[in-house]
């Protein structure tokens, strides 16, 4: 384990001397322990989809702007997804690992879009 602490000799203020030291316990250097993280079943399963659903209130221009901001899509791609939501009732905006999908959905909810994540398949 690495521990970071500010080393300040007695009598000196932080402004006078602020030194960042790295304290490394010997035992940690000699016997590094690497914990293996077991992949959960969800992580090895199929990815998750981020889906945006149609609602009659959110403006088309607003939805396009949100897609551009959240996913970094160019305007044309954002508009394509917006129209898919408008005409088909839903659009898959992104697919991938669950953690990131959840983050996207959280951002979309922050913009008040109706968004969900669903397992692929």
């Amino acid at each position, binding site marked *: 384990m690495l521990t970071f602490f500010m080393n300040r000799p007695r009598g000196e203020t932080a402004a006078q001397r602020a030194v960042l030291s790295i304290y490394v316990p010997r035992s940690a250097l000699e016997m590094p322990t690497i914990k293996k993280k077991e992949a959960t079943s969800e992580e090895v399963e199929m990815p998750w989809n981020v889906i945006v659903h149609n*609602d*009659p*209130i*959110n*403006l088309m*221009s*607003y939805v396009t*702007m949100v897609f551009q901001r959240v996913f970094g899509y160019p305007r044309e791609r954002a508009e394509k997804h917006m129209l898919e939501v408008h005409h088909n009732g839903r659009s898959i905006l992104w697919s991938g690992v669950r953690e990131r999908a*959840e983050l996207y*959905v*959280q951002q979309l*909810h*922050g*913009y*008040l879009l*109706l*968004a*969900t*994540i*669903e397992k692929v398949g």
Partner: protein
Amino acid sequence: MEICRQNEALEIRELDPFLAELLRQIPESAQPKDSPAAQERLFSPPTMPEEKVLCAEWKLYVVPELRRLFQSATETVRQDLQQLRCTDKPFANCTLRIPMAHADAWLNALNQARLAIAETYQFSDHELCDHYRSPLGSRRDLSLFQVNFYGFLQEFILREMEEGER
């Protein structure tokens, strides 16, 4: 009413008392405490109800964050709306200046208000497209007008934001 960009702000001039009052109602409309339907829409679940763990975690960790975000946007709007306190001439037209730095907060608060009102009144698609309906018929008609008026403001803010990015 006249709306235009003035340097780093949007100015709504010649705002008549009726429209000014509708604007004053944004914060209250955005956070209706007595409408479970509106609350349900603003804090909708992130997935199917079968995903119980995910839904529970969402309620515990994400919903409070969203609530803070929405309240912060509404508070910014509330502060900007202080300009509409026309105490000396209560029925005179007034001007509202929205700094472009507050544009995101306004978009968010207007969206909250529109979604909450629409959810409370369950407007049909036909009603939402009826832009010529008088707001004077009933409380429902007034609320529909409110949704459309707020939508118009959103469109304008979005257009100006886009112009600014070019």
